[in-house]
């Protein structure tokens, strides 16, 4: 376990090695939140509520979902694809650790780093600039914490799945981009799921995506009651377990037909 914790630390160091990335990241997130705030206030106009969310709740939703994204989002699929295409995966396989487990830890290290040095200061700025309203109910934040941890796992598992496909189709950058758009849209980051037409909502109940962004954001904006929140977390948990199996199967297939590219 020691080695996995050490990996988190290394990832911290790597994030700190590129400070510009860090600062521009904060800027991009603030611009995004600002853009969505103005977009939504235009859409709301004089209306008090749309589909049960007030404009303040909506702004909070946007702010929280972008900040949560900083935690669960990672580029593990792209990193894996690169490592496989350049043959660096060979080096990973000569080390006594589980390659996928290590990747998850790297993602987690990155996530924790962004949560503390990026989301937390970001949320404070947002709190003063935009009319967002946070609850001070600790149980809500507790549920939120569990929920974004599970979002991280769902999203990371999807990334690993996409990453492993590089073993079979050597250039999967198209797939990676498609996956990212699908997740941004269907996870409720761009638009809360309750805004989707009824049939789409019905379909999405059977997909893992809403567990990535919609659930945690709804929990913190109090769009969900406590019972709904616990139900949502259970669903997330089920997805974390369900997604584990195809990864294991694909990974064992991938190892058998691995070709190290470039000598």
């Amino acid at each position: 376990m020691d080695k996995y914790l050490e990996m988190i630390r290394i990832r911290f160091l790597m994030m700190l090695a590129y400070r510009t990335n860090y600062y521009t990241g904060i800027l991009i997130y603030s611009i995004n939140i600002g853009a969505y705030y103005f977009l939504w206030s235009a859409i709301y106009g004089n209306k008090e509520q749309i589909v049960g969310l007030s404009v303040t709740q909506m702004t909070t939703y946007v702010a929280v979902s972008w900040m949560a994204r900083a935690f669960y989002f990672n580029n593990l699929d792209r990193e894996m694809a690169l490592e496989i295409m350049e043959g660096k995966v060979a080096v990973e396989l000569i080390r006594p650790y589980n390659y996928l487990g290590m990747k998850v830890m790297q993602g987690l290290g990155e996530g924790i780093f962004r949560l503390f040095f990026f989301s937390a200061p970001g949320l404070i700025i947002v709190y003063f600039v935009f009319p967002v309203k946070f609850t001070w109910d600790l149980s809500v934040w507790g549920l939120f914490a569990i929920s974004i941890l599970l979002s991280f796992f769902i999203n990371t598992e999807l990334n690993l799945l996409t990453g492993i496909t590089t073993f079979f189709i050597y250039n999967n950058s198209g797939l990676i981009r498609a996956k990212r758009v699908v997740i941004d849209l269907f996870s409720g980051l761009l638009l809360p799921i309750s805004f989707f037409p009824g049939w789409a909502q019905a379909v999405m109940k059977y997909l893992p995506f809403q567990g990535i962004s919609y659930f945690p954001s709804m929990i913190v904006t109090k769009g969900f009651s406590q019972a709904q929140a616990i139900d949502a977390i259970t669903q997330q948990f089920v997805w974390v377990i369900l997604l584990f199996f195809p990864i294991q199967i694909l990974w064992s297939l991938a190892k058998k037909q691995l070709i190290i590219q470039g000598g």
Partner: protein
Amino acid sequence: MNNVIEVNNLRKEFKAYSSRTGLKGAFRDLLTRNYKIVPAVNDINFSVKKGEMVGYIGENGAGKSTTIKMLTGILTPSSGEIVVNGMNPHKEREKFVQTIGVVFGQRSQLWWDIAVQESFRLLKKVYKVSDEDYNSHMSHVIHTLDIEPLLDKPVRKLSLGQRMRCELAAALIHNPPLLFLDEPTIGLDVLVKLKIREFLKEINEKYQTTILLTTHDLTDIEALCERVIMLDEGKVIYDGALKNLQEKWGEGKEIQFQFLEHVELSAVHSLTSEIPVKWDLDEKEQIFTATLEDNDEVISQVIAKLVAAIKIKDIKINETSTEEIIRNIYEKGAV
């Protein structure tokens, strides 16, 4: 029983796709693709004893790297059997890699963006090396490879030679009994090469570390290995002492002459007509090369004849170099 590596009928096949020509061909390739099965490693057998340093040589694409990757558990063999350190590398990968060290000359195993010592620290945790073992062993390694001043620099700022020394140190953090080196001296200058060779010799003596080395630089092999395994098109064509190779294939000696005056090739031919010798002339440099058997009598005769007749600027007597021997073998494709 002391075999560290045992390889039986090892085989690895790859699918090689070939594209059809033209636009029509490209469209057909969308549906079905032509491929043939190419054996990269073709039923090889060998074993390595503890404490040996073995050179694994062959042309580009002969299957050296593929073999190393199977021996280290990265690739799954298509068929055949491998036992390394008493384990099946692919089946028990995580446990197995704990007992080996690997350096790939063409890829870095250090983390690019962070300081070398941070990489070391992570690897120390990864291999579960205790503080005492690490301190006693690594301080020696760091000192011998002279990388002390590099430890706090990020890897991307190191030169190739500096990085290579750090790579080697990184591969030895857990003091493995078996070391695989895949072209460790590629692109390095003479001084760094010498330092690395010295170091490898030292750890081999000190810890009885078994070393399997692939390289294209035969001076590495000459300096380090008593035994070579030679590979051609996926097959082992020679496995034995380097010395035997030299004795068997080192066809006699070469004498190079440069003369003060202009001499025709036919003139030297007629001078040495009764001695069994073959002459070559390098037109540009005006160097005459005589190839003859390794016999002191004959060599003295040739020199005597020429010195008596023509004024000489320079003479050199060469033994056939390993490089030439290897080249000969590759050209003939068999030993």
